[in-house]
């Protein structure tokens, strides 16, 4: 665990403790389960975003993809009678295609990730709305899919399955990013693409894979969201989710310049964001201030982090200087 993660964990616990003191309802089982469920839902695509940010890229179409794939998933089952596992597979396949497309545009046509995924944000949202003729996609009355319900909105021992999925993918992501050769290559490409190329890394393949991975996880999260809301309003479903994801990744120590960050950090970042949301509700802060609270906490966190970093740099520098002072007290060496 990195020092940054530790700092974030302390912040999460502090905020949690304060909320509990002011309003003990925070630790009631029902509130905890609800918050945990939201953490799971938002966590899945935040991890997804982290992989792209690690390559010094950005994925802005997450919210729109969640809406589009959600609409398609429900429509396939509700209107076309497709068995849900098949619908799930189709949605996953689509996500891989979208990821490949983004990766191809970025690496082969050398477009900027911001531009590519911003266009994606607009395009997928538009398609989602057109697909349902701006209507809401929902299950018809009396649809009974107990297995689907159980897997995506059920609980095991009181733990929502979204949380279990989040935990599972978080562990996989942690191994992938921090323990495998691919993860090291991913960070290397994000840190210095040129040097990565000179080191023999197939940088294009690494970048494309990052976008594919991102979209794949987003698709999983899209299905969880669709089942959570049970109906998808394509003009508002998933709005701004990409920004939650970016915020969580940045809180988790991922630099937008790429090449650094920890999965433990993103997980804690997601937890912090949801606890803050919860705090606004529980402390009776007007919900219109929701975003303002979140923005302030992120800003303060980032400022504290950079200041701490600068302080350590200065300390290191003065240590070097005093070492020099000791050296120059010694008689000069003549060669």
């Amino acid at each position, binding site marked *: 665990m990195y020092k940054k993660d530790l700092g974030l964990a302390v912040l999460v616990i502090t905020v949690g403790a304060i909320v509990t003191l002011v309003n003990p309802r925070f630790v009631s089982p029902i509130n905890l389960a609800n918050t945990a469920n939201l953490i799971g839902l938002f966590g899945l695509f935040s991890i997804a975003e982290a992989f792209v940010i690690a390559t010094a890229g950005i994925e802005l179409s997450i919210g729109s993809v969640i809406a589009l794939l959600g609409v398609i998933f429900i429509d396939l089952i509700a209107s076309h009678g497709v068995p849900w596992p098949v619908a799930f597979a189709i949605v996953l396949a689509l996500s891989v295609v979208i990821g490949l497309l983004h990766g191809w545009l970025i690496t082969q046509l050398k477009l900027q990730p911001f531009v590519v995924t911003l266009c994606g944000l607009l395009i997928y949202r538009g398609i989602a709305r057109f697909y349902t003729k701006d209507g809401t996609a929902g299950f018809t009355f009396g649809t009974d899919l107990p297995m689907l319900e159980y897997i995506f909105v059920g609980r095991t021992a009181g733990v929502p399955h979204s949380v279990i999925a989040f935990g599972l993918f978080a562990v996989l992501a942690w191994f992938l990013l921090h323990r495998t050769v691919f993860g090291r290559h991913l960070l290397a490409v994000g840190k210095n693409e040129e040097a990565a190329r000179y080191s023999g890394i197939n940088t294009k393949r690494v970048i494309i894979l990052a976008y594919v991975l991102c979209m794949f996880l987003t698709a999983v999260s899209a299905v969880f969201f669709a089942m959570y809301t049970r109906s998808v309003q394509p003009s508002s479903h998933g709005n701004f989710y990409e920004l939650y994801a970016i915020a969580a990744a940045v809180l988790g120590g991922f630099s937008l310049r790429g090449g*650094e960050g920890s999965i433990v950090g993103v997980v804690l970042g997601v937890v912090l964001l949801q606890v803050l949301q919860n705090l606004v509700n529980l402390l009776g802060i007007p919900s219109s201030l929701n975003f303002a609270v979140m923005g302030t906490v992120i800003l303060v966190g980032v400022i504290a982090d950079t200041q701490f970093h600068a302080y350590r740099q200065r300390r290191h520098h003065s240590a070097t200087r005093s070492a020099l002072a000791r050296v120059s007290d010694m008689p000069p060496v003549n060669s």
Partner: protein
Amino acid sequence: MFAARISLDLVGITKVYPSAVALNCVSLGIRGGEVVGLIGENGAGKSTLMKVLGGAIAPDEGEIVIDGQSAASLTPSAALARGIAFVHQELNPFSNLDVAGNVLLGRELRSRPFGFIDHAAMADRVRPLLDMLGARFQPSTPASELSLADQQLMEIAKALSTNVRLLILDEPTSSLTLAETRRLLDVIRRLRADGVAILFITHRLAEVEEVADRVVALRDGHNAGELPKGGITRDAMVRLMIGRDVKQFYTPPTTKEGSVVLKTQRLRTRTYPDVSVDLDVRSGEILGLAGLVGAGRTELARAMFGIDPVEAGHVEVDGRPIAAGSVPAAIAAGICLVPEDRKSEGLFLDFSLAENIALPSLSQIATAGFVDHKAELAMADRFRTRLSIRALRLDRPVGELSGGNQQKVVLAKWLGLKPRVIILDEPTRGIDVGAKAEVYRLMRDLAEAGAAVLMISSDMEEVIGVSTRVAVMRRGAIAGVLSRSELSEEAILRLAVE
């Protein structure tokens, strides 16, 4: 036309960076009407000292005495106000402006009453300066049409237009032809006669011999010594710069050359699509690749290593052609490249020593795709010892190391792959003398162990000192190949220029 002659003394200047001491108690004096040659290896502290003079950085200790007034540091505007002007090694003219616009940038003359730029008045102001320098271009010539030498003259004109009393020339002749260099040296003499002090930084010792009144040498951030007018000889300068005799510093490999390992067959690069390159590098030899800046040496190396696609032809290793434009293919064939710019191409400065060293061979030391941290550290430790990389910890960022140690890390990266061909692009640029000796030793060891070593270098002495053979490039083509017995600075230069 010049103000009172300058009297400038830098006394006990010290500048410390987090990872290195750039200047340690360096002193330097210069008076109007004097040409001082400042020499020293790359990384000796010359450019840091110049930045102190130009006000770009503040020294940690020491004082700067100008005309009897002492200051702890200068700012760029204070340096300019005292008549200190710079001509940088890297020329960055504004190619969208004309010569007059460049010379008077930021001090444009305006016409009344609207304050528009008065091009005619600016041309009138600049013309006498150009005449004095013997320039063959006009104030209205677009800067984009100037040759490198003319750009240099334009920069000098710019310095003169500021009422210069001390002119600092940083490697002014590094990209000039012989005739252009002659002209520049004449300009220096004329300015000296007018009472300007000139600080002349160069690697070309013959020029220092010709024009300098005094030589100041730096080595590893220290004053290494001075030479008075009568004592300026090539050997004396080299001794001051490297602290020992050249002969024991450079030794070529002792092995007999073996079979051809690396071969390019009618290779055409993107930069010079009209010329094809046929080059052989043999096992056991160090082939020096010399030539002027822009002769296409780096481009050739990049094409051989698969960084750039090729126009035509191919590269062979041990007789087997390798796919062009693919670094992984080149590496698989046993080629590796130590790039020119180690900070942006060779290293991940924020990554640890171990991570940098292990990166190219990560798959080899991984189990089922998982990085084996112990093996990674063991490998890094092995190469730290073998290359005497001075670093206490393997888990600290490489960016904290000195240039020489960083360069050794770039070399260490490749050794784990046991390369057949190792291409080094300016491997000793900006590193200290000790590290240089170790880089040479390693190159020699690799060659003697049977690898083919190709070394691109602009440092003439280095090329002559360590190479078994030297190929000289000119405008993208191999102008000639010199055997060890034919090697001399003159022979290389004759091939490098037309």
